[in-house]
């Protein structure tokens, strides 16, 4: 499989190089909002949505920056524009679709200041993806994030019913679970190489 083919990019970002479990991006929501499935899943979906938005924004802005020969402003431009775009989407949602806002919108501010979004924008630029590759990359990263946070939430919900030792509650347990999930996802390493 060609390493720049869309299907490879997709599988690779979902499984082998999962943003959360292999690349360490977006850990704050992964650890923080994975306590319950009914918050984790909307959170994942909202993240994927923001990823798409920021992927498109970043792609456009990068063209401008390169044209003006001011690539060193990339970071500032990306983050400022992504943050504003998300804030705009949030306000729009709040106004025009309160129900959607209640289920997804509340996660938006949390997502803006999260590495996965900016990381996605930066990596797609470093890897010099074209527009469709960038989109697939964003979708893959988003689905990978949903996968990771949903699995985590499922496990944590199940563990709510266990009698955990007193020291393994809270953050330590989440991290250990994250470690074991990450160990599991190592099985996908190199998927699509041969």
């Amino acid at each position, binding site marked *: 499989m060609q390493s720049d083919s869309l299907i490879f990019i997709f599988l690779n970002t979902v499984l082998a190089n999962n943003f959360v479990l292999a690349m360490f991006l977006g850990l704050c929501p992964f650890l923080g909002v994975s306590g319950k499935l009914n918050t984790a899943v909307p959170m994942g979906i909202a993240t994927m949505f923001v990823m798409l938005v920021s992927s498109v924004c970043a792609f456009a802005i990068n063209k401008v920056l390169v044209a003006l020969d001011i690539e060193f402003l990339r970071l500032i431009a990306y983050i400022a524009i992504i943050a504003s775009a998300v804030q705009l989407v949030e306000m729009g949602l709040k106004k025009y679709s309160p129900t959607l806002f209640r289920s997804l919108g509340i996660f938006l501010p949390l997502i803006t200041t999260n590495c996965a979004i900016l990381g996605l924008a930066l990596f797609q630029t470093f890897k010099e993806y074209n527009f469709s590759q960038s989109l697939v990359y964003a979708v893959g990263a988003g689905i990978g994030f949903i996968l990771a946070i949903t699995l985590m939430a499922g496990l944590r919900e199940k563990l*709510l*019913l*266990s*009698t955990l030792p007193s020291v393994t509650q809270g953050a330590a347990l989440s991290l250990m679970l994250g470690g074991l999930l990450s160990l599991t996802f190592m099985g996908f390493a190199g998927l699509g190489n041969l």
Partner: protein
Amino acid sequence: MGIFNLFGAGTFRHGVHPPSHKAATAHQPIRRLPFPDHLVIPLNQHIGKPAKLLVKKGQEVVRGEPLASADGFVSVPIHAPATGRIRDIRLMPSARGEQAMAIILHVYAAATQEVLWRNPVDPGALDPQGMIQAIQDTGMVGLGGAAFPSHVKLSIPEEKSVDTLVVNGCECEPYLSCDHRTMLEHPRELMRGIRYAMQATGVSKAIVGVEENKMDAVKLLREHLHAQSDISVEAVETKYPQGSEKMLIKSLMGREVPAGGIPLDIGVVVNNVGTLAALGKLLPVGEGLTERVVTVTGPGVEKPGNYIIPLGTPIGYVLKQVGYIGGENEFILGGPMMGPSVSDMETPVTKGTSGLLVLNEPEIEQETRRIWPCIKCGRCLNACPMHLNPAYLGLLAAKREYEEMAQTYHLNDCFECGCCSYVCPSNIPLVQHFRIAKAINREQAA
């Protein structure tokens, strides 16, 4: 007819196959136990409002005389099981645990079996309304164990229509054989009772469901039917809890009682064979329910068998009569799957008592096993006849998440059959958890 009937005996999905242990009693004729010197007659032997007291301390009563009258529609009268004098009316331990009001009747040594008080009716001449009243006057309740007033069950509200009477002769509980013996020894009364019930409800069809391990009863009952009878006798698979009304209806007719509903909702009325046989016997002569057939059995009993026992007889007296082997014992009222165990020898036999089971040391030792954490083996899910998820219910119960149990996991559909606990390799007392959960939910709602 459910599709299951295409393949041999009807059945339902899931359930368990505990060893039956019925051989010790199933082949012995029913015998009668003498009166004890005193009877303990609780006022609430049935589901519903306790009966209203009619007698006073010190009063003399004769066998069959009403001691208490029905207090409203969902209530039944209580008749004196023997001739004697009211010694006291006081709190006594009940099978359920709390102390309950009971009449202590001192039985005269000369008391005989003859029933001295009756109120005969002509069943043929009664309209359904009159029939219901007559049934209530007998004090009849479900003898299958729930002790629900039979007349309530048999009175069909205007807006409902019923097409089938299911007669429950399954007796799926291990050890018990009173229904089996009743079918074998009183088929005529049973048939008569079925007729009365059909008359009261107006149904056109009756099915007697009997487990396959009682084919002799099936054969005998079929002999009492004409070729084109509207009553049929069907064998169903031997499996616990086949006798539960929901399962039996599913097995015989393929219908499912809706959650939270009763058989009436799908046009069925279910009665136990013992109930109808007793009805067939009592109704024409106008007698009250004063005694019942009880299977007294278990490894702790010397002379296991089925006995006719006057209601109110303390179990201590019963055991003395049948002779029991001492040591460490467990006394169970009813079968081993659903019957409560009791600790007070004064606990009386009541209308709902179908058995008295005495387990002794070896069985107790064997059953007293360490409780392990749930290993998620899923056996309970594959046993639960209601298709619940006892594993998660149990885990939630341990965390006191009672509300979630009811809301997400349908706790209230559990009828406490005990299949889940029976199969659980971790010996988790699931049913006990569920009872607590239900009780607390009820209290919270109240």
